[in-house]
């Protein structure tokens, strides 16, 4: 052993230098730490810019500084009104999104698989998808009143087209080769659908569902602005009428926070449950 190490002293020296004691964390943790640090710096810079714009450019009424927003947040959360409004908005998003996603999945799988159905449905859907949820508010109020049903319907509208288009794309883009290979191995059409097409479409469907989730959160606010007696949109509207800009900012930050958390949760759940289908090149 001694002779072997004696033969090649240079390579040992290189190894020793590479693992010097200064490197007290391995590469993976260093990368994580760096990312976390950058997020902190980004948020700090954002807060500083907010503060600066508030103090020196627009004044604390038009843009309340961060500490004023925190001061407004404390009583709002203590009284429970913020939580109530946030939960109202969340429940509307949840119901509308779940319904829209389910219907879109069903229709999308059908359209992707049955050519005639696709050719009949596609022109209509392609035409109607230019109606944003906001454009549908007036008629939704006439149809459903200002109750919960109208909000569900609007979130449904915001969800369905995105999920539908991505589901159809996922089904249609299932590699022909993979289906042919399964046919050779004796698969029936039903087996091909269940065991080949559905799993192959999962990545597309998940992307569509994620985009639609953001769309659902975006759409609930205008719906509540125009016709509601609760929810974050309603909070925005009331605060605006009373010129309480600090409360408006509390609601705005809340919308971002909820949306962000929902998206992360979505990624966590799909990443865990559908991992093997998503890790597909």
């Amino acid at each position, binding site marked *: 052993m001694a002779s072997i190490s004696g033969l090649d002293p240079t390579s040992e020296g290189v190894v020793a230098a590479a693992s010097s004691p200064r490197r007290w964390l391995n590469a993976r943790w260093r990368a994580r730490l760096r990312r976390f640090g950058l997020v902190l710096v980004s948020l700090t810079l954002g807060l500083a810019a907010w503060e600066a714009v508030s103090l020196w450019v627009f004044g604390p009424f038009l843009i309340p500084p961060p500490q004023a927003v925190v001061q407004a947040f404390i009583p709002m959360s203590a009284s429970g009104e913020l939580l109530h409004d946030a939960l109202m908005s969340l429940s509307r998003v949840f119901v509308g999104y779940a319904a829209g996603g389910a219907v879109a999945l069903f229709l999308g799988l059908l359209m992707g698989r049955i050519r005639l159905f696709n050719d009949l449905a596609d022109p209509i859907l392609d035409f109607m998808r230019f109606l944003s949820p906001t454009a549908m508010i007036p008629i939704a109020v006439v149809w459903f009143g200002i109750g919960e049903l109208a909000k569900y319907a609007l979130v449904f509208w915001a969800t369905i087209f995105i999920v539908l288009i991505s589901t159809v794309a996922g089904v249609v883009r299932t*590699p022909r*080769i*993979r289906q*042919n*290979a*399964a*046919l*050779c*191995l*004796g*698969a*029936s059409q039903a*087996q091909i659908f269940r*065991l*080949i097409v559905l*799993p192959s479409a999962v990545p597309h469907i998940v992307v569509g569902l994620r985009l639609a989730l953001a769309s659902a959160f975006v759409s609930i606010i205008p719906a509540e602005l125009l016709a509601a007696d609760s929810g974050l949109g309603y909070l925005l509207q009331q605060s605006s009428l009373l010129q309480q800009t600090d409360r408006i900012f509390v609601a705005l930050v809340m919308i971002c926070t909820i949306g962000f958390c929902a998206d992360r949760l979505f990624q966590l759940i799909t990443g865990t449950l559908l991992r*093997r*289908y998503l*890790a*597909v*090149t």
Partner: protein
Amino acid sequence: MLAGLRTPARDAAGPSPLSARHAEVFTARNLSKVFGDEQPYIALDGIDLVIRSGEFLCLLGASGCGKSTLLNLLAGFEKPTSGELLYRGREIRGPSKDRVMFFQDANAALLPWQTVQQNVEFGLRLQGLLYSERHERAEECLELVGLVEHRHKVPSEISGGMRQRLQIARALAVDPDVFLMDEPFGALDAITRRRMHGALLDVWQRTQCTIVFVTHDILEALVLADRIAVMSTGPGSHIAHLVSVELDRPRHPGDPCLGQHFEELEGFLHTTALSA
């Protein structure tokens, strides 16, 4: 294990192994295939070809000459426009597990969300085999292609050559009569390809299945085939020449006999390209 890999179709074809061996697996008479209605493209025109049981036949031709089209017809993915195409005396109506197709793009052909073992079991699962049965059978097939120790990995974790061997194992599991191979090793490096040729010949000799192998590589055809069908350049492609390669295996690319055949085949390919 060998007995287990025999096909019911072959057993049904004749009582004695000798007659079964010479039975016609594919019979094509004046076969043609036209794509499109308004601007028809004649891919194949007047294909006459008989492929016998246990034979290793290579379809050789330039890119776009219709080799893959012919293979798709044999598999049953496409229907002929006119002419007759029989599999063991019966018209081909659609894909069947007697004729398993192999693809160059293993990523698309395999199920990337399943492990190596599950991929092999896939065909058996379709038939409703019980877990224990299909597990045992899959293991046999994986052993035959040397993938047993990788059975818990997913396809993206194994090399390109291993993925092609996985395709072979998956096909073996359903006990096919015919392997239809569409440039299966075209995307592999030269060294791996050589090794795959050995593995394929080994499987072919053990199972005595029939292989139809599409390639544009003259040397590959020479190393593998009993007979080489040279296709003319499309449109309206047909079988221009049929060459028997009566050399012992394993064949080495440096063999002078192979070199003679090589020149002959290259000449054929050249003239068919010029006449087109």
